[in-house]
């Protein structure tokens, strides 16, 4: 008697979406903190906003939107069982993730070099609202960056499985779910960008 493992495509996708909703609530909490403290310290938040680098923020937005396109195309490619193309598209997504993290590294190096980091002497000497702004910034963007790393790693694992044939046109829910996770990373940044880089 042969054993065939139980597969549940709809269930797997539902499970992933439920997890993504919890991520929405998680980052929603951080955005709530932003809203609450913005209403409490509008001038300090505006001062903090003037220290942000619009060029980095915009570049990172474009990079993540492009990476989302490539990830979505990878799903299409695997549905058509075009495995070589799938791997290329996944590679492109991971490359975008790497460039994003590189930008983040350069941006944060500049800010930390300017004495902008939680509990720095510059911030400790300034108004408390500015400290709150930058703490929220590092926490939110840092947590997002962690998600970029996790998502990139996940997509790399998926690419290996595509190469080995474990993921193919008849069985690809792992790739689809990983792409969904990646789109969430993009979604969160779509809101981080205006809140921290544009409206202040």
């Amino acid at each position, binding site marked *: 008697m042969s054993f065939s493992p139980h*597969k549940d*495509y709809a269930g797997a*996708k*539902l499970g992933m*979406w*439920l997890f993504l*909703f919890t991520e*929405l*609530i998680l980052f*929603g*909490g951080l*955005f*709530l903190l932003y*809203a*609450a403290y913005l*209403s*409490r310290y509008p001038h300090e938040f505006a001062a903090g906003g003037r220290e942000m680098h*619009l060029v980095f923020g*915009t570049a990172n*937005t*474009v990079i993540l*939107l*492009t990476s*989302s*396109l490539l*990830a*979505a*195309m990878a*799903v*299409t490619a695997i*549905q*058509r069982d075009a495995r070589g193309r799938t791997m290329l598209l996944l590679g492109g997504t991971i490359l975008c993730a790497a460039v994003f993290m590189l930008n983040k590294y350069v941006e944060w190096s500049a800010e930390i070099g300017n004495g902008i980091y939680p509990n720095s002497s510059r911030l400790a000497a300034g108004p408390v609202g500015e400290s709150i702004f930058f703490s929220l910034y590092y926490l939110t963007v840092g947590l997002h960056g962690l998600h970029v790393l996790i998502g990139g790693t996940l997509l790399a694992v998926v690419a290996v499985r595509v190469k080995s044939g474990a993921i193919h046109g*008849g*069985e690809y829910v792992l790739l689809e779910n990983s792409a*969904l996770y990646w*789109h969430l990373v*993009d*979604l969160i940044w*779509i*809101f981080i*960008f*205006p*809140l921290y880089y*544009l*409206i202040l």
Partner: protein
Amino acid sequence: MTHEHAPHIIGYGKLTAVWLALLALTALTVWVSRLDLGVNRVWGSLAIAAVKSGLVIAFFMHMRYEGRLLRWLLFVALVILAIFIGFTFFDLLYR
């Protein structure tokens, strides 16, 4: 065969069109933020962000082609988020 139905496949052209729309909306939101709109720039930026996320969810994440269960769950999650933030402000605004 692991699927009961043929999965809906979104073509590369359509995905690229969505991407171009997202880039255009990004340019728009940056431009709007440089205008002098006062507090409306917050709502304007959030509105554009909502449209962008709608496009990502509908097309990149396939929600446009999913069944009722997933779409309703998304709606419920968004309502929870709205209550989370909105009701907190019922308190905060009057402190």
